């Protein structure tokens, strides 16, 4: 019986303990409600630690021309105007306060000469805007929130996985999951639930994401009746490592380009100058010299084309490789070593500004980035889409279910600017925590449905039953996961075509059948095979959502590039693609018209053009 499972009761339950989840937990706790926090791994290990470059906040510490209006306009331009404009507005306005708050909680950012928080240049940001700590800003963010959070009375459940959200009628009233260490089922009752589980990178073969990023939150919300939006917009970061094979996909921070790194093809040509999109022409430098001056803080210089938005840079790299001008291992060259022509002690300077990158290449690729160019290529990095939420409250279309951070859609539109993710986490993590606490105060405890729990428990254990019956002959989960990643990479990747995506849908159907038959062996304690078997449902759900949404958007925009529709379509630019589960379990895809911008915001965009 369900009553036999260990049960926890909270006002607000937060699933995911990266930047957004921790920030939400801190905020909800500050509102005086009882908070539970579930992390899939150990506390402080979430993917936020991987963020390198910084967090965008228009504080104007380095260039006082910066303000929220510029940041808003940059975010909308980067997102190709399909963003949730309310989120873009709130984000630009509230990020500076959220960054100052981190400092009050112990974060130690790099400093300007006059002792303020230093800000650096990044792709798509008009002014130096990223508060940072060398190239380990994500670690600083998560550690600050963690070290502050552990003193706020938050109950932390480490190494737990949620398998389903619990519902009372239309409303979400908790979650059901298990602890990974012992494999015991647990019930988490809650008046409000915040999903902050991050992304979906593990649906692809080449990714910068860790094993955790299997689309759990998007999938949990979808199966609980919530809408997902913008799922076609997957960000392929232009610079991932490509050699040696074991590190393929590992991120090389955009800060390398921010500090003066340039992209070259095998002929040594800086190919980014060849293709500058019209809407960025006025902001982009026309010669290498000016680009260099920009990276060194010259306020009158325009940015080099290497710092154009990620979607564009990734496609340019793809084009060079396809045209046979790539590097030996199928990428292009990213060169920071060249700055020794410009500054004395360049090697020391690079080590100081990009310490993690220096060590990453030294240790993993035997390459000294202060002396030699790196070989890089695009890697699946981020999903702009996710759970559709209200811009102010972060509540999804299901009452009591909130989402923040990468798991939520809206802020970034068709393409996210570097640095806008960490600020997203703290701005909307805070909002989600605040409004979830408010919801919890206004609503009573829901009714848990025992049969829903028993059904979920039975389903979760099925792979063991099959393992026991098969006597070792049945397929395990790893091969299914591997085949899905290969297929998504090949058919729904950086360049897409209708016929290939239709094949992918067919493939997802077949893989779902296989996933329903996988077997695992051994016992429930810390069993990675079992964990992978459970993740498969989530990976398949988000893969289907990505593919169906990508088929629906018959144009190219931001992270979504259609070879069969290479141009932008004005009509498509007025809609978001939304998916929702039909009552019969199939996936419904529809277009939702984007609400008009208020006159004030429209004017901001016009002014900043």
């Amino acid at each position, binding site marked *: 019986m369900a009553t036999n499972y260990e049960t926890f009761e909270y006002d607000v339950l937060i699933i995911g303990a990266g930047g957004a989840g921790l920030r939400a937990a801190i905020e909800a706790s500050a509102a005086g409600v009882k908070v539970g926090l579930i992390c899939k*791994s*150990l506390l*402080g*290990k*979430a*993917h936020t*630690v*991987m963020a390198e470059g910084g967090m965008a906040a228009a504080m104007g510490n380095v260039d006082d021309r910066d303000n929220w209006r510029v940041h808003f306009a940059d975010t909308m331009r980067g997102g190709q105007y399909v963003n949730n404009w309310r989120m873009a507005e709130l984000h630009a306005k509230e990020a500076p*306060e959220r960054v*100052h708050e981190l*400092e*009050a*909680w*112990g974060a*130690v950012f*790099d*400093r300007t000469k*006059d*002792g*303020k*928080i230093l800000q650096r240049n990044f792709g798509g940001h008009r002014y130096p805007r990223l508060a940072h*700590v*060398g190239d*380990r800003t*994500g*670690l*600083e963010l998560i*550690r600050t929130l963690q*070290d*502050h959070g*552990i*003193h706020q009375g938050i109950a932390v459940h*480490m190494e737990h996985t949620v398998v389903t959200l619990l519902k009372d009628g239309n409303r979400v009233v908790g979650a059901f999951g298990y602890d990974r*260490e012992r494999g015991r089922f647990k019930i988490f009752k809650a008046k409000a639930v915040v999903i902050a589980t991050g992304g979906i990178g593990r649906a692809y073969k080449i990714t910068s994401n*860790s094993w*955790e990023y299997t689309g759990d939150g998007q999938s949990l919300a979808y199966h609980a009746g919530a809408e997902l939006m913008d799922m076609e917009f997957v960000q392929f970061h232009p610079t991932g490592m490509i*050699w*040696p*094979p*074991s*590190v393929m996909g*590992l*991120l090389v921070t955009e800060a390398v380009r921010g500090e003066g790194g340039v992209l070259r093809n095998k002929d040594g040509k800086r190919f980014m100058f060849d293709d500058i999109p019209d809407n960025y022409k006025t902001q982009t430098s026309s010669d290498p010299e000016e680009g260099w001056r920009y990276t060194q803080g010259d306020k009158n210089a325009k940015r080099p084309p290497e710092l154009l938005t990620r979607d564009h840079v990734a496609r340019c790299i793809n084009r060079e490789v396809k045209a046979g001008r790539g590097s030996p291992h199928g990428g292009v060259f990213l060169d920071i070593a060249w700055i020794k022509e410009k500054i004395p002690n360049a090697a020391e300077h690079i080590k100081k500004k990009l310490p993690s990158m220096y*060590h*990453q290449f030294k*240790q*993993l*690729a035997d390459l000294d980035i202060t002396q030699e160019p790196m070989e890089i290529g695009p890697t699946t990095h981020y999903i702009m889409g996710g759970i559709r939420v209200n811009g102010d409250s972060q509540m999804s279309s299901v009452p009591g279910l909130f989402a923040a951070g990468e798991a939520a859609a809206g802020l970034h539109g068709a393409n996210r600017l570097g640095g806008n993710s960490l600020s997203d986490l703290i701005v909307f993590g805070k909002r989600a925590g605040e409004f979830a606490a408010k919801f919890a105060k206004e609503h009573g405890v829901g009714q848990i449905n025992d049969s829903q729990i028993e059904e979920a428990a039975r389903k979760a254990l099925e792979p063991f039953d099959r393992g026991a019956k098969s006597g070792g002959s049945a397929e*395990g*989960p*790893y091969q299914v996961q*591997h085949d899905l990643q290969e297929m998504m990479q090949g058919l729904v990747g950086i360049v897409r075509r209708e016929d290939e995506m239709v094949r992918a849908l067919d493939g997802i159907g077949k893989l779902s059948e296989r996933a329903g038959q996988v077997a*695992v*062996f*051994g*016992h429930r*304690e*810390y069993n*990675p*095979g079992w964990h992978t078997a459970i993740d498969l449902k989530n990976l398949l759900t988000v893969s289907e959502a990505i593919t169906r949404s990508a088929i629906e958007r018959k144009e190219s925009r931001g992270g979504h590039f259609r070879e069969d529709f290479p141009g932008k379509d004005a009509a498509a630019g007025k809609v978001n693609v939304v998916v929702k589960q039909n009552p019969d379990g199939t996936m419904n895809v529809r277009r939702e018209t984007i609400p008009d911008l208020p006159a004030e915001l429209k004017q901001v965009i016009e002014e900043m053009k």
Partner: protein
Amino acid sequence: MSRLTSAATEKRFEMKTVTFRIWRTDENGGGKFVDYTTEMDEGMVVLDVVHKIQATQAPDLACRWNCKAGKCGSCSAEINGMPKLMCMTRMNTLPADKPITIEPMRSFPSIRDLATDVSWNFRVKEKIKPFKPRTPDAPDGSWRMQQEDVDRVQEFRKCIECFLCQDVCHVLRDHHKHDEFIGPRFLVYTAALEMHPLDTENRLPELKQAQGVGFCNITKCCTKVCPENITITDNAIIPLKERVVDEYYDPFGWLWKALRPKV
């Protein structure tokens, strides 16, 4: 050209095999080493080989990992007896002619196979007094600090909490002083707080008593294994020891404190 081609072909067929001798726990709380032999590609790290074994030979082999980039500190283990991150240990740095032993961190209780119960660390951290900043320097709630004043603290804040320093520290590993000593990781953590230019808290009484800074006798093993190259002993622990000495054992200090004008 033909030479190049044949060299490349040779390389492909020259794929090396390697044997991993991995600690596998049993259901009675004990365990034994089990050998797994597998092929190895160029550039692999230890974690890649463990994953390959997991995917092909031992699907229930438990090991923690996350970022696979040396940034999260999850995949700590003892490789040929040395505490290391599996994701940052390249296979070509290990002798391939004999089996490579992979064990869990031995200073912590076992959960399963390579996964250990590191929850003690989280409990220790909660007991350390949190950051308490002085009032902001500017009306907007911000502070002014010079880069050279935060350099040292930033070094400590590079810590990824892999707990390899805790694993290697003999005070914990051999003498099991977990109730009396917080270990190198949390001395670094305390040092980061104590040397934070904005912090106003005093943690010296606890450092001396409950947290046992005196137990450290500066063997520097922690510094040697730190994957972030934090100079744990020299930059964090010794200055903390000096502060404790200045506070509690310096007769001139006592005299000065007794006589100094109260402000």
